[in-house]
């Protein structure tokens, strides 16, 4: 049985109106009925003062506030309405250093453009079925950047930094 998403509330923040409509249409066909849209991160922050979505689809490159700055703000700002909200980053960036940058800002999932219906569904499913614990340090609040958990008591033989590249792409 497919996911019944009819009670989900989704925010789409994307500066290109055509991409925005495309994501909205896909979500509607997957059963999401409550969708709001905005053009950049600052619009999204304004909207979130009075409305709480369950998931945010957020483009990376937007002005004046891009998706990374929005994510850092929502995760770290003391006035954030919900620092734990799942954020799915839409982007044409596919270079590894960009993925790390998004991960380090606190993005939950990474959906590389070109966007496909399957990709949208898969990211929503992952957010729902595979929630990750959050890590809080002085400099970071966001989903654990390790997807695979080491079992308790495991000997850490790693000599290099952990491979955190398993964000869904």
């Amino acid at each position, binding site marked *: *049985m*497919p*996911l*019944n*998403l009819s*009670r*989900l509330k989704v925010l789409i923040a994307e500066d*290109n109106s*055509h*991409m925005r*409509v*495309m994501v909205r*249409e*896909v979500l*509607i*066909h*997957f*059963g999401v009925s409550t969708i709001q849209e905005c053009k950049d991160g600052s619009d999204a922050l304004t909207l979130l003062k009075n409305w709480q979505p*369950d*998931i945010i689809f957020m483009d990376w*490159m937007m002005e004046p506030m891009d998706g990374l700055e929005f994510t850092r703000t929502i995760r770290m700002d003391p006035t954030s309405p919900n620092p*734990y909200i*799942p954020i799915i980053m*839409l*982007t*044409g*960036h596919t270079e590894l250093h960009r993925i790390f940058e998004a991960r380090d800002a606190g993005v939950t999932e990474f959906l590389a*453009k*070109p*966007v*496909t*219906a*399957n990709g*949208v*569904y898969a990211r929503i*499913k992952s*957010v*729902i*079925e595979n*929630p990750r*614990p*959050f*890590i*809080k*340090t*002085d*400099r970071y609040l966001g989903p*654990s950047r390790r997807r695979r958990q080491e079992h308790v008591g495991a000997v850490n033989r790693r000599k290099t930094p952990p491979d955190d590249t398993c964000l869904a792409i």
Partner: protein
Amino acid sequence: MTNSDKSDDEKDAVKIIKPPHPIKDKVSGSGGPTPEMLAKAQAAIAKMSDDYPGWAMEDVQKLEQLILDAKPGVGNGRDQMRDAFKLAHDMRGQGGSFGFPLMTRIANSFCRFVEGLASIDQGALDICMAHVNAMRAILQNNVRGTGGPLGAQIADGLELAVQKYTDKHK
């Protein structure tokens, strides 16, 4: 003790939080989309792709103007090339999303080229313009998909030009 007095370990003290997960209560089911759902979603995207050449052409014209405005010398076209990168970056994501992956490939080649440019000269601007001309041809001829052997030849040629220029200016 102020934050600056803390050791690096203390600064990096890690707290693991299990956040609330209210979505789980709102959603039932667990499988993938039904073929019907998927087909309808894909049909909605396909329908939108009919309009893509029209609005994407406006972006190609903007890109062309930015390159025409970029001049070697004072300012070295830095502002124009930065804006051109942003525009081409968006086009890179949109092309494939709307059924024009050849646009994505050429926009990607453009982005990689511009991103690596330390300064511009006429040769660099010519390569940029060749990308723009290829994009325009794709849209005018409604070249969907990868464009077949001709599409590959055009994209290969642009990527080779980028490679040669980059190698020469290392």
